């Protein structure tokens, strides 16, 4: 039990300061006795009040301005000269007040804008003002935990299980260079030995021969990828120092207001793990709950990973054990970390590296990866199947993205693919997360579903999914895709509104873009990330627990989506072979912009038993 303190609250401004009144309430709730003085008293009268009330603490609030510093320091001097200074603790609050100024004026503490009531109470109680008192305490959230993964639409569920069963049976005895590297990474690469620089001899010997040309040259001849360079020792030391100092100072904030969901994800992938860490720390401070690792596009088409602490001069941060490990070490304990594996030739190995280096989540979808990202359907189905198994082994949930919609694939086809992969995931014991797009997609542009508003068609997608399966939903990636312009106010506003729609529809997570989303002339800048986090925060503050009401069309379109998805699954069933269905266009035709990829073609082999 803390001792009850007598606190004098003295506004030196002509009016009462709201902050002081809030602090007063906090102090009274904590059981302290407070005296709120009338505004703008002469300092001598305040001193007399200290004597009369036997106050142990005085909190002064005052806006700085001409001559104010002298006034405040005269107050402190008078307290001292009156022999009271050892009996009373002095705090000063107001705009532009910083600890340096408090020290200069002779106060014991200074409170600038953003001071919480908890911090003020801690000061009065003589406790160390710690990060815990800033009011924002964040825990890592598992967005999958409350879901049963039971089908609401039983007949569709039945069909989905048949398709998933077919994939499972087909993929079980197949392997690929990607799977072989995954096996090597899983069995021969010990993360503890690697961290202690002890080396994994057997792995080092075997791995280069499982890689494509460039990684192989790296391991055997020491050639780096042309767009990458190694960090210098000085840079690494400087980063460590920067990180340590930032971690000590960081003040986390929350984007959510009254609801705990949706959880907010930010993407990073500037190319440079240092810059990424800078971006991540800013995202965390401005309220992001999770971050998603983006690797360069050539990473998806290259067989195998490089190693070393590497920076890359273009978009996307190269996946290497050292890069991932550094980034993981930079995260706040509450931050969710997703390393996406979904689309390329390194899918299963990415999952293993991510798992071994502490990622919470990954991203897997053979449909998008093969129809929208250039990987051969057969290859990615084998790799995706094994990737799901590894994700389960490492306890990672994974989202199933539907970005093929951006190429022009209609939502119902993308959703059918997503549901098939998710069903396979559930069947193997995993925790998939549905990731529908909140976007002004080509389908909606042509079909005019978004002519009147951006609400109904996005809402229809959520209604449809919720009527099919009890599973977590994470619209992405990012929300508001193709609605944003280079104008940062427009962009942040659009993200904010889409986030509010997502919140209103009760989804579990969202990925948000930066306000540089539509700008293609250069890298995404860090202020553009705080822009959208602020916009979303303000949106959540505005709507609170109220929501957005979609029109009747949303339900109508939702129902139509369900029946269209059902038809697509029928088609896949009829084809009898998931891989063939991908080639045949059941899940998106060439006319719709879905081109079965060629990377890794003819590399699938039967496992020798």
């Amino acid at each position, binding site marked *: 039990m803390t001792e009850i303190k007598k606190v004098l609250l003295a506004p030196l401004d002509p009016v009462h300061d709201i902050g002081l009144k809030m602090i007063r309430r906090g102090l009274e709730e904590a059981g302290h006795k407070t005296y709120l003085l009338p505004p703008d008293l002469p300092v001598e009268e305040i001193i007399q009040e200290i*004597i009369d009330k036997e106050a142990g603490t005085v909190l002064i609030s005052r806006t700085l301005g001409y001559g104010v510093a002298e006034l405040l320091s*005269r107050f402190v001097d008078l307290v001292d000269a*009156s*022999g009271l200074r050892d009996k009373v603790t002095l705090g000063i609050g107001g705009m532009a007040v910083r600890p340096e100024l408090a020290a*200069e004026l*002779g106060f014991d503490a200074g409170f600038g804008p953003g001071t919480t009531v908890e911090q003020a109470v801690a000061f009065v109680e003589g406790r160390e003002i710690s990060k815990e008192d800033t009011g924002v305490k964040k825990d890592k959230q598992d967005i999958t935990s409350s879901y049963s993964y039971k089908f609401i639409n039983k007949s569709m569920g039945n069909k989905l299980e048949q398709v998933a069963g077919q994939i499972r049976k087909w993929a079980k005895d197949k392997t690929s260079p990607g799977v072989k590297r995954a096996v090597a990474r899983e069995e021969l690469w010990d993360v503890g030995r690697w961290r202690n620089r002890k080396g994994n001899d057997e792995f080092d010997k075997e791995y280069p021969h499982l890689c494509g040309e460039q990684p192989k040259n790296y391991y055997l001849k020491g050639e780096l990828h042309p767009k990458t360079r190694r960090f210098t020792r000085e840079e690494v030391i400087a980063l460590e120092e920067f990180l340590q100092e930032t971690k000590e100072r960081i003040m986390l904030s929350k984007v959510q207001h009254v609801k705990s969901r949706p959880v907010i994800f930010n993407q990073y992938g500037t190319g440079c793990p240092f810059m990424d860490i800078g971006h991540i720390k800013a995202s965390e401070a401005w309220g992001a709950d999770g971050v998603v690792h983006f690797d360069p596009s050539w990473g998806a088409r290259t067989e195998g990973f490089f190693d070393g602490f590497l920076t890359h001069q273009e978009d996307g941060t190269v996946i290497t054990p050292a890069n991932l490990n550094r980034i993981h070490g930079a995260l706040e304990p509450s931050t969710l970390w997703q390393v996406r594996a979904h689309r390329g030739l390194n899918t299963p190995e990415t999952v293993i590296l991510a798992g071994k280096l502490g990622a919470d989540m990954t991203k897997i979808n053979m449909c998008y990866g093969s129809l929208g990202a250039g990987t051969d359907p057969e290859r990615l189905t084998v790799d995706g199947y094994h990737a799901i198994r590894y994700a389960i082994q490492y306890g990672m949930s994974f989202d199933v993205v539907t970005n093929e919609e951006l190429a022009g694939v209609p939502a119902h086809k993308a959703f059918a693919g997503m549901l098939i992969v998710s069903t396979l995931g559930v069947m193997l014991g995993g925790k998939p997360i549905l990731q529908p797009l909140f976007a002004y997609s080509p389908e909606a542009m042509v079909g005019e579903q978004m002519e009147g508003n951006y609400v109904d068609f996005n809402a229809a997608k959520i209604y449809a999914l919720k009527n099919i399966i009890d599973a977590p939903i994470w619209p992405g990636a990012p929300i508001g895709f193709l609605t944003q312009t280079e104008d940062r106010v427009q962009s942040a506003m659009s993200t904010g509104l889409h986030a509010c729609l997502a919140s209103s529809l009760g989804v579990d997570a969202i990925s948000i873009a930066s306000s540089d989303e539509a700008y293609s002339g250069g890298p995404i800048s860090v202020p553009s990330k705080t822009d959208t986090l602020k916009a979303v925060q303000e949106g959540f503050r505005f709507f609170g627990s109220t929501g957005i009401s979609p029109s009747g069309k949303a339900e109508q379109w939702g129902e139509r989506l369900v029946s269209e998805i059902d038809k697509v699954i029928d088609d896949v069933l009829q084809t009898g072979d998931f891989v063939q269905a991908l080639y045949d266009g059941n899940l998106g035709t060439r006319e719709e912009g879905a081109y079965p990829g060629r990377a890794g073609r003819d590399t699938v082999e039967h496992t020798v038993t």
Partner: protein
Amino acid sequence: MGLLYNVIGIAGTAKNTGKTTTTNYLLDMFKKKGFSTGLTSIGYDGERLDNVTGLPKPRIPVSVNTTVAVARRCLPVSTARIQVIKETPISTPLGNIIIGRVEKEGLVVIAGPNKSSDLRIIINELKTLDLDIILVDGALNRLAPMVETEGFILATGAARSPDITRLAYETHSIAYLFGLPQLKERLSTEITVQNGFRKKHRMGFASLFTNRQLFELLEHLTSETKRLEIPGVVQEKLWKQLGEHIISNELNFDICVADPIKLALAGGVGNIHRLFERLENYGVKLLVAQKLPLVAVTVNPFFPKYRFEAQDYEPAYVDAVKLVETVDKVISVPAIDIKRNGDILFKALFTGQT
């Protein structure tokens, strides 16, 4: 030639009156003399830009042979390499105070103890280190903790008032208050009225901030009163009423205050000065229990001119020569423009020369 004082304070009448310039000058001179110097502050000094005006400020260069007592968070922002030799439990908004030796010269930011009692502890700590001199840098117009020093330099100038005549009169008044004679006795901790021999009335309070307190006191003042002891602060308007009461009732006794700082803090020093001179004419004797010698006055022609339209400050200057001459005429200690004749200040610190 010996130093007159071992602990010297540098106090200002306002921001930007040249405290840091004075401190830097002294540090430089002590360095040239090969003195070991202790340095602390009652505020925060040495940052690039002023915390209030946003104008650049001189920073504090320190050399080896200097020992500093500063808040912990000053260390990472200082370029001087400082070896911590002692941690103290004295806390400030910038962390606890440490005592440290300068190992490699550079610039320091100094934030020291913020109250008299803490400054006393720090000065005593520094005294154990066998230093030749200890400097206490002031902050803003703060004076109270300077009571712990052995003598102080007052930095004043156009930043206090660009009106040279007014500034000279104020400086004269300050010099008067700090020149009041000393009563070599300890004061009671409360305001005490001595009526006749051995008859003392203790008021139950140390300072006078309200009319009620004053009226209570006035009731005890009679023609028998020999001495009034005031250990705390008396508000300016109450001094005035007390003075009027003494004069109109033809009372005559000694008034003894704890130290001149408590007088300087009462309000307008000019008004207090005028009142005291009047009282002295009526035969009232004014004394201080503890003297705090004013060693010298440094005057700075610089002032930050507030621009109302832009709501910021720009640097401005008054006539430096006229400023020094005008102030020097009205005080008995030297008035110095540190940038022109700092050597006068240095001499003032030693025996046998002023």
